[in-house]
């Protein structure tokens, strides 16, 4: 279809609006309520334009293009309409731009310069709108500024999947609010702040701390979840003041999750480690870098020299950069130890040595929208992967059939095709049921060992959706990777993928879960679980808090307390380190170092530091390089992080090579479920890594609440405990005192006790047997 806008001609597809055509032509039409990712509301009326033969000005955002349409965006009629609307928008808008946080980046302010009058004809009293407290992240303190564009409302309904904000009341008394007294708890809520075209919704942590024009913008990449959201980090006086999304349609679109956005508070936390520390006479003392490095060098040499290389174990966080991971494994191997790993929360390593390539998502993020069917296995989807879940949510709203094979948990807020929630022990069996259903549907004999499996109606529905879809995908979530039979789950998912023609992949636990494989931070000897199960003499920990990050914190703590040497490279001085670390080397978080993260789809995303390191902290890769030099190991001559990266990934590669989820596994046979209660452990969203744990505002959210023992009412009745009553939870030697909570989403026979929290750090395996009794 052809359309002429201000004399310029554009060809647009059927169904386009005037706004689409104008954007294609680069013609700007002023607007507030219109947003390319949200539904059309046409309520601000700012985009009124003149259309030939139309008696009235029409909203460009909502008017479909007809062939031969002639549009005038700057004609007298259009300008008069736009100015008229601007006058209405301004009559009740407070004149508080000088103290408004949005000042300088306010769409209303910008457009008022072009379309507003220099004085107001409105002489009456302005509307007063009462402020609302909606939680620690979003400030709704000055709601009189609201222009009722309902972008925030539509964001909730359409993107976050939950309508937490709505417009109550009518007339000029209409106001945006939550349901009486509720807070905004969505894990994507911060995007509403970006969407708000005025200063009505502002960032609570950032409020009144800087003006937008004082801030410098730097590109960065989120070090949290496996999406690797692109960020714009804004700094002032060498301090990170706030974090905003940087649009990348293929990765994070224009959104970021709240942990991407608000975790920056940890960067400026008082718990930051700014100088090296060594344990002297039982207490950690600050020392100079040369002293600390000298100490570490000698201690490592002594231990590996005296007790053999295998007495050393090294663990890295999957949030660490590719460069750090690469140098750590090189250092460890140089010292004669094969015990290096980054898969801290993994329990089952049976696929090590049997994988064909680097495990990854199985397809690109941008291809999710083309799927006909998707199955997610073992994931607390929304909290583990907010942005990935958002993509599936959009898919579910269209034609895609999204199914879950879960361990229960929060409502994913996705229009689901089918859901099966089972206990951890039954998860392989439930997946096997889908495999068998798929085989039956294809009239193929089921694989050996599947004789006793009986597919239920939901398994059949899932299998059918995967088979029927031209493009289907199977995603293994975090719980499936942490599961005690992770290898079986992987093999079964691969089998299902083969049967149905779907892709199979891992959503990935952390920002560099793929990068860890690429950097070969993988064990030749002991793996992450064995390192603590078979205690070592010396440990090098890179960005790891073992009591929170490991599959079995009980074991980890015991091993660390008994070790002769614990060297921690960490940005923070608090936490368990105080108890067991012998040396603390201050390394910088992602904003103070250059580095590379490889996201779940294998995308290589390098970034630069955005501020200078705090105090004496140094980038992890530099510290490891110098340690390599001091230990006289070969291969530590790099001058820049780029050189380190180029050792791992060929320069200029956009995606890593060797991505393949294939696995060679033996035949599967069902294993008996253990007697008694099983633990289901989730990693709460704001406990997942060391940055979010120290982000003050995030820690005040409901999602950061202290763990409880969640179980169904039936389980509660069996244990004779009531909702809210304290229970003693025991695994092995360790125990925790938690309140019991009724939660019908927890599968029968299970108790959900979150990991990654100090109150549960005394417990053992994430998915083992657990004993619960009345306290």
């Amino acid at each position: 279809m052809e359309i002429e806008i201000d004399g310029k001609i554009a060809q647009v597809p059927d169904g386009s609006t005037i706004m689409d055509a104008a954007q294609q032509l680069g013609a700007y039409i002023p607007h507030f309520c219109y947003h390319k990712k949200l539904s059309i509301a046409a309520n601000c009326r700012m985009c009124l334009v003149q259309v030939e033969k139309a008696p009235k000005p029409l909203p460009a955002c909502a008017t479909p293009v007809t062939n031969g349409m002639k549009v005038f965006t700057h004609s007298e009629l259009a300008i008069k309409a736009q100015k008229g609307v601007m006058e209405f928008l301004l009559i009740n808008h407070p004149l508080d731009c000088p103290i408004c946080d949005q000042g300088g980046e306010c769409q209303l302010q910008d457009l008022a310069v072009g379309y507003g009058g220099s004085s107001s004809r409105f002489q009456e009293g302005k509307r007063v709108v009462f402020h609302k407290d909606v939680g620690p992240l979003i400030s709704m303190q000055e709601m009189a500024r609201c222009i009722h564009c309902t972008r925030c409302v539509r964001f909730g309904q359409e993107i976050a999947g939950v309508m937490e904000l709505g417009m109550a009341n009518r007339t000029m008394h209409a106001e945006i609010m939550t349901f009486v007294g509720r807070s905004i708890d969505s894990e994507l809520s911060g995007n509403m702040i970006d969407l708000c075209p005025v200063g009505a919704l502002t960032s609570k942590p950032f409020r009144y701390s800087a003006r937008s024009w004082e801030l410098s913008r730097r590109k960065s990449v989120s070090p949290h979840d496996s999406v690797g959201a692109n960020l714009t980090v804004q700094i002032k006086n060498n301090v990170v003041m706030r974090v905003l999304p940087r649009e990348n349609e293929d990765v994070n679109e224009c959104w970021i999750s709240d942990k991407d956005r608000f975790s920056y508070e940890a960067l400026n936390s008082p718990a930051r480690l700014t100088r090296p520390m060594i344990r002297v006479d039982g207490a950690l003392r600050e020392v100079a870098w040369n002293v600390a490095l000298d100490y570490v060098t000698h201690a490592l040499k002594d231990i590996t020299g005296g007790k053999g290389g295998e007495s050393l174990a090294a663990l890295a966080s999957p949030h660490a950069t590719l460069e750090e991971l690469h140098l750590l494994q090189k250092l460890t191997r140089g010292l004669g130890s094969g015990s290096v790993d980054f898969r801290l929360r993994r329990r089952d390593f049976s696929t090590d040595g049997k994988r064909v390539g680097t495990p990854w998502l199985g397809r690109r993020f941008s291809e999710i929208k083309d799927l006909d069917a998707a199955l997610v296995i073992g994931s607390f989807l929304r909290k583990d992967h907010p942005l990935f879940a958002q993509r599936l949510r959009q898919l579910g709203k269209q034609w895609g059939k999204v199914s879950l094979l879960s361990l229960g948990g929060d409502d994913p807020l996705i229009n689901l095709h089918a859901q099966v929630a089972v206990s951890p022990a039954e998860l392989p069996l439930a997946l096997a049921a889908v495999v068998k259903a798929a085989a039956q549907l294809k009239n193929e004999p089921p694989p050996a060992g599947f004789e006793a499996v009986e597919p239920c109606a939901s398994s059949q529905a899932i299998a059918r959706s995967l088979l029927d879809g031209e493009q289907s995908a199977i995603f293994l979530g975090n719980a499936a990777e942490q599961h005690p039979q992770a290898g079986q789950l992987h093999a079964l998912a691969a089998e299902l993928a083969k049967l149905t023609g779907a892709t199979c992949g891992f959503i990935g636990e952390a920002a560099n879960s793929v990068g860890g494989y690429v950097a070969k931070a993988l064990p030749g000897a002991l793996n992450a679980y064995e390192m603590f199960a078979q205690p070592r003499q010396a440990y090098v920990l890179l960005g790891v808090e073992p009591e929170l990050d490991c599959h079995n914190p009980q074991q980890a703590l015991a091993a660390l307390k008994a070790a002769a040497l614990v060297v921690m490279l960490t940005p923070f001085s608090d936490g368990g380190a105080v108890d067991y670390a012998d040396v603390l080397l201050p390394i910088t978080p992602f904003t103070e170092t250059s580095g590379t993260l490889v996201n779940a789809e294998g995308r290589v995303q390098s970034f630069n530091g955005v501020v200078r390191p705090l105090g004496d902290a140094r980038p992890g890769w530099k510290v490891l390089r110098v340690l390599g030099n001091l230990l006289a190991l070969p291969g530590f001559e790099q001058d820049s992080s780029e050189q380190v990266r180029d050792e791992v990934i060929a320069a200029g590669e956009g995606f890593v090579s060797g991505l393949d989820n294939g696995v060679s596994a033996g035949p599967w046979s069902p294993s008996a479920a253990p007697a008694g209660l099983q633990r289901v452990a989730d990693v709460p969203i704001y406990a997942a890594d060391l940055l979010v744990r120290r982000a003050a505002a995030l820690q005040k959210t409901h999602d950061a609440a202290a763990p409880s023992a969640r179980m169904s009412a039936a389980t509660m009745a069996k244990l004779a405990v009531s909702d809210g009553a304290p229970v003693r939870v025991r695994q092995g030697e360790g125990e925790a005192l938690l309140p019991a909570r009724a939660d019908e989403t927890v599968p029968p026979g299970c108790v959900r006790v979150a990991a990654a929290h100090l109150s549960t750090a005394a417990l053992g395996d994430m998915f083992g047997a657990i004993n619960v009794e009345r306290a």
Partner: protein
Amino acid sequence: MAILGAINPMLSLGLDGDKAWRLADYVKRGGYSALRRILEEKQPQGSVINEVKKSVLRGRGGAGFPTGLKWSFMPRSFPGDKYVVCNSDEGEPGTFKDRDILRYNPHSVIEGMAIAAYAMGAACGYNYIHGEVWEIYERFEEALDEARAAGFLGSDLLGSGFNFELFAHHGYGAYICGEETALLESIEGKKGQPRFKPPFPASFGLYGKPTTINNTETFASIPYIINLGGETYLEAGKANNGGTKLFSISGHVERPGNYEIPLGTPFATLLEMAGGMRGGRQLKACIPGGSSAPVVPAEAMMACTMDYDSISKAGSMLGSGAVIVMDETTCMVRALERLSFFYYEESCGQCTPCREGTGWLYQVVHRIENGQGRADDLELLACVTTNIMGRTICALGDAASMPVQSFIKHFHDEFAYHIEHKKCLVPVDVQRAGSGFFTARV
């Protein structure tokens, strides 16, 4: 209110107040014969619509859109669900006819909707009834039960194989829910806010399905059109303005109430039926079509006949047929203040010009009425109304602006006097006398 008088009535023929609304009475009056005949003869859908087209029945809700044409917009071959919806959300100040139709002749609406559903291939209908007339909602539910029991609703109507189920749905009294798309939102359980059009309800209506929405009186007229034939119905009125219509007369007349008269009847006749001006006073102005219609001064009004075209020529709208009569004791500023307050209160708050503009209009008119007017206020009001009109999602913005524009246009002197002298041109005691609540005499 009640139906107090009629000339050549159809809708109100044979009604006996509260005594003759039941199914048996309706059937006695010839009710359900039209539906029965259509179903028994298996009349083609097109011919039913044609009959309605021939009658030139124009929508009785206010816009006056030809009903037959509206019905023909429905995609009859559309395979999925389709809906017919009756708009009984009578909220326009001055209008009180639909409640009387539902109270005294509910089965005519049910029959009309069933015929409409047949003609458009819909199997489901809703009657959205204003939330502030609860007893009428209850009565309509009772009438529905009667119709269901008699086989005029439900599956396989009168053995014809045609299914039609009709439900009553009551609102909560918001004026905006009388706007057809806001009404649909409200039925869907959402906040009553108009949708942007296009798409129109005929392609994307209730639950996203093709939907036709008509006024109560429109549906109630359908059985009479089918029985009489479209042409006879048209002749009952005047060219391009078919049939009879109920007029709700309120204001300064002796006998306010509903009157059914053929379209084209002179205003003077209608005024006479209503007992003439109260206390024999002079007519000052009249709002001929509900509060959103522009006001017409006495002289022009007396020259009008009551039909869509004549009123339109006089610069106003027949609207819903709500005739608000004002005599010489009326202060036009005060009258406008009350009207503007209504629109300010009822704006849904969705789109900017109406949300902000209606409040602004009211505040300025309120100020003028209360002796705080400023010299440039009339110009400001003119400017604000033009900025609202035609810029909003629905017609409420226009409805709020038209009274302001017309009041100032026709009674500019009164407004100017108010602003200049900080008081009414019509003395307060005269106003009080006219109100009827005070004993003072002029």
